[in-house]
């Protein structure tokens, strides 16, 4: 299998699906000249010149235009340059895109995909580094995908492009350049299927996005100490595969939830609550959360390092749980 970075994997998914389905089109800021800041849409303008629109700067108009185009049968894939800028379009996301099918009485679908570069990366501070999964999870009607590997990113994007629901596709900027093996044959990864990235007997670690890699690193270190982590990547937060998570917790009797969102009200809160509700009798210890500090992301590398959840914090939480 070829090893490619995640931005290329998403690009391949877009190219392959655009070749398969003529209703897909791409819009967003700078999506032609640079292929967006992370080069995900590079080459689409050359291959599908009529199916890409480089837009003026307005996230609200990008999402609103995408909703309108979806209403007349197209499948828009809109890039929001940074997830932080989705705030400028939240009415169109929350009141329109998420609710139009329901409010229409199911007469129409709104299959819009919003690609959302997320998370900390390269010291870009409070308005370029956020992780807003929990906001989107909270809105009925939206699906939320959070790939952690190139393989998952490509397979999930293909599923998104074949589904009928609006999708908030969370792309962690720090993962764009991380390479991973991607099958060179056709495949899709269905939404709502968690992936067990590592099997272990002692602690279930539900990790998403960039925390999957950190959890696997923590697992290697802890394995030498005789603590075996089971690392589960939900891959989609909506829909959420709780069966895989609950089965794991019933086996390990301990759980850590980790992601890069600020901890208060984060997706980890929903996951921890579900585990507490459904697996209470199996738990030997309280569910732990390892997430970002509840602060706007600072710029200084020294400060950013403190705010972002680390391997060390995972190690500490795990050691504490089995102590």
């Amino acid at each position, binding site marked *: 299998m070829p090893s490619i970075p995640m931005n290329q994997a998403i690009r391949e998914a877009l190219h392959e699906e655009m070749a398969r389905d003529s209703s897909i089109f791409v819009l967003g800021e700078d999506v032609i000249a640079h292929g967006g800041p992370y080069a995900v849409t590079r080459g689409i303008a050359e291959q599908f010149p009529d199916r890409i629109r480089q837009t003026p700067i307005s996230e609200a108009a990008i999402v609103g*235009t995408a909703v309108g185009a979806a209403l007349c049968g197209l499948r828009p894939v809109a890039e929001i340059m940074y997830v932080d800028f989705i705030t400028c379009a939240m009415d169109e996301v929350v009141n329109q895109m998420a609710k139009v099918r329901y409010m229409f*009485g199911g*007469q129409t679908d709104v299959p819009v995909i919003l690609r959302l570069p997320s998370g900390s990366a390269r010291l870009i501070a409070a308005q370029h580094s956020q992780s807003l999964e929990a906001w989107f999870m909270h809105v009925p009607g939206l699906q939320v995908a959070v790939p952690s590997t190139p393989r998952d990113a490509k397979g999930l994007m293909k599923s998104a492009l074949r589904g009928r629901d609006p999708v908030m596709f969370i792309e962690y900027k720090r993962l764009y350049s991380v390479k991973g093996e991607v099958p060179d044959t056709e495949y899709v990864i269905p939404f709502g299927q968690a992936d067990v990235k590592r099997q272990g007997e002692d602690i279930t670690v539900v990790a998403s996005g960039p925390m999957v890699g950190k959890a696997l690193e923590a697992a290697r270190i802890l394995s030498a100490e005789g603590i075996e982590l089971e690392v589960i990547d939900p891959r989609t937060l909506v829909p959420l595969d709780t069966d895989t998570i609950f089965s794991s917790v019933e086996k390990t009797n301990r759980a850590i939830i980790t992601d890069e969102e600020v901890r208060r009200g984060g997706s980890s809160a929903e996951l921890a609550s579900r585990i507490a509700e459904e697996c209470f009798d199996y738990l030997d210890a309280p569910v732990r959360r390892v997430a970002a500090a509840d602060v706007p992301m600072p710029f200084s590398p020294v400060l950013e390092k403190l705010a972002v959840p680390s391997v060390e914090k995972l190690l500490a939480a795990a050691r504490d749980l089995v102590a």
Partner: protein
Amino acid sequence: MLGTMYSILSPGGNVQSGARIPSLALDQQLHLYRLMCLNRRVDDQMIRLQRQGRLGFYVGSQGEEAAIIGSAFALEPRDWVVPCYRELGAALVKGFPLIDLFSQFFGNSRDLTKGRQMPNHYANHDLRVTSISSPVGSQIPHAIGLALGARLAGNDDVALVYFGDGATSQGDFHVATNFAGVFKTPTILFCRNNQWAISVPVESQTASRNMAVKATAYGIEGVRVDGNDIFAVYDVTSKAVAKARRGEGPTLIEAVTYRRGGHSTSDDPNSYRDDAEVEPWIERDPILRFRLYLTRQGHWDDDKEQALEDEVRATIRNSLDEAFRSGPPSLDTVFEDVYDEMPWHLREQMESVCTPEEFQTVEQGT
């Protein structure tokens, strides 16, 4: 208040000197007149029902029927209407059956929106009338997307979006109009300037001389028309539609009209404006103006008016009776259509709030 604007009929129903009546066959003219009367009567009836406590809420369009119906009539069935919330007349032009509208107002089991939307927020995808959106102006970008979508799909459908004068203060109006200009989308941006946004007069809404002038900043054509003149509204909208269809881009139309009633049944305009202000607009009534014209042309008389009145009343009554006969939506539908396939967490919630027996009880209408 009025300023310069395109008109064909004087308030007295005379053809202005130098003006030409658009080419509309007599049966089309009479159809338009009937729809305007039907719109007015539906509004009267619904407001009455609301006052009687039989309807929760209603938004009327008294005095704005020419702006709404004249513009929608310039569209083909395949074109999109993106309503604000005061465009019952446009839905009627589109062929929205009264029973479907009334069922929506009451949120019953016949309601196409399945009892999910507040009254006046109807939608019919097959008729290409999109879902009405409560946040003011948020529908305007959708019309850009629908029109851009038509271009991408290689057809010449156009999208007409309605909004009020208040919506021009929203960011969505400006960003959408900018997109329309940049992409030359086949969009008609139709501003019903009815002078009031709930209790805020248009003078407090903008420092611009008028609404049409706003088009200039976005490099598109802006037109100002007498919104109470059915022929003038139809004429400018037809031209804008033809231009859009030819691929020559969008038009912003400002229809100058007046909101004779409250913003909605939740509003009492007597608390913020004088009757003296409303008075001249009663003289400018769009239905009266059209009737005077038709009468002068020998196409209308009191007998015909009475016959139309009787027919419209009977039509409304029959549809209302039918709507009242329909029960509430079945309980399980509350969880449908949130997603394409119902995810487990919704299935779980559905099962926790309702037993299968309860679903059946509701479906049997008990």
